[in-house]
């Protein structure tokens, strides 16, 4: 047996560029240089530059392209690079000239450089049909279309504030939907049914899969076992369908789709962390270009851009004007599913603050 690492490679110092090491913990400020380049200044006046480039919406690359990117990291960035929370690429470079040259090469390779401050920061997506068994909507292709439609906000036009977009193929929300300023959330709207193929599945295991315990084991007259779904409990998450070939959605092409939510954000600034709110409860899947979805997203961005004060994230903006005016101003129709299931309480709450 050879010596094997336990856990991820570490210590991290082995992987950061040398010229960053002695500035760690000593940074005092940063300055946005041209789009996508941040100048970081440490307490002794030393500077390094981070260059941020956009990624594919779901982070999939051919090794051919990835090797080209690696080569750029070797050439400009101390032979190391990182990926951000927003799935973007980030290179740490020792001088502004190098940073600019790197930016140029990245753009030539097809990767926009930008995405800080009052811009589109990131678009992220889960695996969707591309790799996953649970998708109600193909988040990657939806997000790819949104990216095309909004790309100018990444590196050219300004927005009122930061904008993040995420898409997930199903309620598991692997793409980070609900968390971002605008999210695409896959949703099944039918209850799965059980076919005779269910006999090939691990019944006990399938029952455990269900997050709400809607799947019950049953004994058949002939002594055999099967399972039943209690419709009143089922939240349509689709986990059982992914887990057992004998459980199926009958007409996903009609009943699957996605909801759009807005106003998620994590940052403590202003009122603190908050989840996205459903503004459109269902849009059917219409590849390749998902026109309806794109129109809704564009409408939200345009309305926000026109109406928000500088510095207002979507959540802050809606918080100021209220939901009624959001629907008025955007012209989006309002559907009853959007109502908070707890709103019926009529209990009004004080505004939340972060860390309170």
């Amino acid at each position, binding site marked *: 047996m*050879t010596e*094997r690492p*336990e*856990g*991820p*490679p*570490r*210590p*991290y110092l082995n*992987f950061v560029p040398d010229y*960053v090491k002695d500035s*760690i*913990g000593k940074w005092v*400020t*940063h300055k946005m240089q041209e789009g996508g380049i941040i100048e*970081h200044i440490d307490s002794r006046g030393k500077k390094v530059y981070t260059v941020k480039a*956009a*990624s594919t919406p779901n*982070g*999939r*690359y051919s090794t*051919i*392209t*990835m090797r080209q990117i*690696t*080569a750029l990291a070797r050439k400009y960035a101390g*032979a*190391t*690079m*990182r*990926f951000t*929370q927003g*799935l973007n690429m980030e290179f*740490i470079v020792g001088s502004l000239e190098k940073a600019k040259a790197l930016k140029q090469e990245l753009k030539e390779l*097809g990767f926009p450089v930008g995405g800080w401050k009052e811009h589109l920061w990131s678009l992220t997506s889960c695996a969707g049909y*591309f790799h*996953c*068994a*649970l998708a109600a909507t*193909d988040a990657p*292709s939806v997000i*790819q279309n949104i990216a*095309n439609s909004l790309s100018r906000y990444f590196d050219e036009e300004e927005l009122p504030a930061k904008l993040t977009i*995420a898409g997930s193929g199903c*309620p598991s*929300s692997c793409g980070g939907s*609900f968390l971002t300023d605008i999210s695409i959330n896959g949703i099944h709207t039918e209850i799965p049914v059980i076919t005779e193929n269910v006999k090939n599945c691990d019944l006990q295991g399938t029952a455990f899969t269900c997050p709400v315990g809607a799947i019950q084991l049953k004994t058949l007259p002939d002594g055999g076992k099967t399972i039943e779904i209690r419709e009143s409990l089922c939240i349509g998450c689709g986990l059982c369908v992914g887990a057992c070939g004998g459980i199926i959605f009958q007409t996903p*092409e009609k009943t699957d789709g996605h909801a759009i939510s807005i106003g*998620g954000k*994590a940052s*403590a600034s*202003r009122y*603190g*962390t908050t*989840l996205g709110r459903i503004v459109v409860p269902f849009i059917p899947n219409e590849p*390749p270009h998902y026109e309806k979805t794109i129109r809704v997203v564009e409408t939200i961005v345009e309305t926000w851009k026109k109406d928000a004060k500088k510095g207002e994230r979507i959540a802050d903006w809606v918080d100021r004007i209220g939901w009624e005016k959001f629907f008025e101003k955007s012209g989006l129709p309002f559907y009853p599913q959007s109502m908070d299931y707890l709103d019926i309480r009529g209990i009004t709450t004080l505004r939340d*603050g*972060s*860390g*309170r």
Partner: protein
Amino acid sequence: MTEVPEEVKKGREIVKEIERGSWPNFLKEAEKTRYPVDLYGASLYLKRDLFTTGGYVSVPGAPTGILMRVTSRPDIGESTNVVRVLLPSGNFITSDMMDKFCDFADKFGVGMVHALSTGQNVEIPGIPKDRIREFVTEFRDAGLEIGSTGDAFRNTTTCVGATLCEYANMDTMGMRDEFYDKFNDYAKYPTFPHKMKLKISGCPLDCARTTQKADIGVVGSWVGAPIVDNKMISSMPKEKVDAIVNSCPTLAISRENGGISIKGEDCIQCMKCLRNGEGAIKPGDKKTFLIYVGGKLRGKKGPLTSKLLMRVDTKEEVMEKLEKIVEAFTDHAARKERLGDLIFRIGMKGLLELLEMKLQALNVKDLRTNVFYPVSEEERQEIANDLAGRGK
């Protein structure tokens, strides 16, 4: 030559459409690999997912398992099982390491890398089922590590923290390293009721989204007022300083002889003034770690943001508390119940009892609006004593 099925033909047309546009394109990338684009295209045409799960297959060296992906149309495209790779903290990848990933992807997979997953791992898709053991052995021999699956700690993620950011109140990447030094078993062996995620942000701007998608979130912060360099402030234009003063949500900032003064007891560390301050305002000296619990996105109850559990002064206390939370979770969560859902079920007070702690005002977002709660005899006594003690 076999006939190309209708759905593949139509699927190819759809794929071509999606490949249009200027943004980096995952399908253009896929076309350069052996990934089954036809299968994907067909699923878009049919509007249904053409994979089913094959569950996790546990192999030596990767006890939490490798994710199996089974095609439901083997006539169109192959199964595409995926290996998830743990990265160095901060997702720093040296060019050598990335080249190795590419080598493995070329040799075992379809020539594709997934960089990054939303859980901040690299994935290598398309490993045939029968080559997984071989892959794992070779991969680990090359000094790399597989993980982040199963009912265990998924990848611990952090923001870049002190390594690049002046807002950082701590060395987030170092804390992740320490987590794995100390708790690698939690990540390696699937002994939990459901997955757990730990995320770490260096300051309340929360670039790691700890307050949204971490079962346990750690945020570096401080207590009291930020540190102000009033020399810099006085040299700023008036409107700039006004903006700083006015943007404080608790109105903790006031003008003071050309500079500003911040009332420490009112600061909630929202970072607004630091963001507007262009280096003139820094996090305070008295550092603290905020521990959040129960964030997650699906579970049983849908998305839940996390709740502040406590503030502690040292990294050691963070680690201690983390262990306690894990114990409470493993002992009390139902199968496939995330920590957030456990808290939903037993209440924050319930969780605190399991941790032998008392509910405090900091745990609470809002207070009750009715009196339909129980008050026990001891509680009545306790309250009476507390209030009697209050000076006249």
